């Protein structure tokens, strides 16, 4: 867990330096929007045990603003929001496991334009994550949540369609794109040590006077290889 935190803090430092070095570069400004499908694959025991698999999928969006180019190198700060999760059955259906993760990260793409439509790029991001784990057994739901930090280091390709010299009409300012990224997602360990009944009232009532014991389900660390496929829309002004 400490190692993951160190890596995420390192990523943040790298982002800061990169942003500062390119902050002065200005050319045509560009707004960037992206939606993507993503997967993460982990060999962490807690993750595999809960999921019943070594990987799971999710969706995400990103909003960015391209600062410009210096010698075809472009920097695009991003605000990213990702949701991932799984719904698994263990013990031949005796136990249902539901896990979800929401990540809100800031990051940046750094790319190098080849021709006018192809951009090899790297993406760095880090931010906050919120995870929840729900166990259902014997008809009873127990849940716990955990806060942590997430990070992403990835590299890939971005291709654009309809990127022509900017005219005055709005259509010529728009371009469509697609990207594929492969990398590694870092995640601090989540300890689900207070699995709590979902259905029982917080305080005993006349109808349900029983105090339920909480329990420790142990940990999930959803770090692992990440892959995403995104489509994007860019608007120059």
């Amino acid at each position: 867990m400490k190692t993951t935190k160190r890596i995420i803090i390192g990523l943040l430092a790298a982002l800061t330096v990169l942003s500062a070095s390119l902050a002065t570069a200005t050319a045509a400004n560009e707004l960037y929007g992206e939606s993507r499908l993503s997967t993460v694959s982990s060999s962490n025991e807690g993750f595999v045990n809960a999921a019943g698999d070594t990987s799971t999928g999710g969706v995400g969006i990103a909003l960015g603003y391209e600062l410009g180019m210096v010698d075809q190198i472009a920097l695009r700060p991003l605000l990213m929001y990702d949701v991932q999760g799984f719904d698994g059955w263990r013990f031949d259906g005796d136990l249902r496991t539901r896990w979800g993760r929401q990540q809100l990260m800031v990051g940046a793409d750094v790319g190098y334009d080849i021709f006018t439509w192809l951009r090899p790029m790297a993406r760095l991001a880090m931010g906050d994550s919120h995870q929840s784990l729900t166990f259902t057994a014997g008809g009873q739901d127990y849940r716990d949540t955990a806060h942590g930090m997430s990070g992403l280091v990835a590299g890939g390709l971005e291709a654009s369609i309809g990127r022509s010299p900017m005219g005055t009409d709005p259509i010529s300012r728009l371009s469509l794109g697609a990207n594929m990224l492969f990398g590694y997602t870092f995640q601090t360990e989540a300890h689900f040590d207070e699995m709590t009944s979902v259905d029982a009232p917080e305080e005993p009532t006349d109808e349900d006077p029983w105090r339920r014991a909480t329990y420790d389900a142990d940990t999930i660390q959803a770090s692992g290889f990440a892959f995403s496929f995104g489509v994007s829309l860019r608007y120059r002004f």
Partner: protein
Amino acid sequence: MRVVINALIGAVALIALAACGGDLNPAWDQPREMEGPIILEEAVVYLDHNFEELFVLRSHVEDGEPRLEVERQATGERPDYMVASAAGDAIYLINRGDETLSIFSIDDEVVEREDVALTSPYDRITVDPEGEFILLSNSGRSEDAVLQNLNEVGIVDLRDGVPESVRVLTLPVRAQNLELMPSFEFDGEPQRIAVALAPSEVAFVDLVAERDIDRVRSVPLTISQADTVRNPTQVVFDAPGPESSSASLFLLDDRSNDVTQIEMSPALGDNPTRKLNVSVNQLAAGQNPHRIAILDLDSGKRLLALDGSSPEFTLVDVASAESATFSLPMSHVATDMEIYSARDPFTEELEKRVIAYSRFSTLIAVIRPESISVGSETPTLGKTVEDIRLDAVPTELILDERGDAERAVMLHPGGQDGFTILNLQTNRPISLTGFNPSQIILDGRTAYGIFGNTAHMVRFDLESGDYWTYPLPLAGRSIFLSPDKESVLIRHDGDAGRFTVLARGSYAPEDALFYEHLFLDGILARPAFEE
């Protein structure tokens, strides 16, 4: 969209699997199989077959709050068969995978495991009441053993600690059942004898014999093997006192109308050919004895036999073989009996008594064998044999075996017949009607019970019959009292582990703690990949 996600997941999963390089643990895909509970003195134990672990549960009260502690301990590979030691301080477990016997010593704080290497795929454990030996044998019903030697017995000698391996002995008979006699002494030498009950034959295994020739001794129950096979159905032991020079066992079988007495005594002489002399006698014990017990009375040893054809019992003087048969004041043949000691309400003297009952008769009988002289006239009804009329037929008699029983509880079958408290001094019943308890535990003059078909617990006073009922979140299946008697643990149905813990004296729902997923505690830390 789903196709794209699946393709992405597949691609990344391949990379991840290549990175971690293992198959997923199949234990996660099989139904959760928790075997238990086994009740020990200090804990309640379950065996987790999926992850090959022992779950040791201990309930206690901490700062007035009831708590349940879970300790897990790895077993060997493929744990299969588990029993508790007679003293309730250990678990004996056969691991089929690595062919070991694990001995878990369990006290109020620590669980320790020691393994004994086995040489055969045993699937039966015989427990020594004195904890000195463990006997292992083959049932012949194993589904996965390639071969089993049904005459083989594995002997684990615990007298000098847990040995590294088992001592193997092949008997001349195939034991249907193995039993250990209580320890006794001949000429100051401790003796330990195991008895193998086989069709038409009994084999004695001398566990402390020094010479090979003395280790096994076979005694036929028929003159010839061609005779009708006689299968032993019950054996009782008469361990000798310090002055006695012989030990006996008494045997019932499914054919004979006599009781077979097999007597052992030390062989005389300086260099005897065999260590023990064995003699066989047939004792007449009524028309059709089907349950027997040995009573050590002031007037001598007596064999008491319940008759299987009519409501009668027979007392046999073991020394003289004289016997006398008496009627039981019951409407049906007595099927079960319990022996206890009770104080005579008038003389204040402690005496042995026998309660005989049948699942088909509301009349039960209390026999006072001390007052019966064998060979004389029929005892007067009401003095030597008393009857108690219950409101419903009995199923199980519960009495405190640790102390002098003054009260007992009789359970009744199904329905709403409640239960009956018996005053064993005066032979008077107190009936409590209502739901039928499925289990009752005794704690001095207080008893606790649970019901199979209502979510309640009952606590009652054995002296007065005063009772209190308390709600539970679900109907109980088993009830245990912690060793310090400060907490009550109740097990409910549910594969995920449902339990309620109550602190003694605080039985209200808001003071109880209800566990619904106990067996999921720490579940994600189990191995994810095959090792």
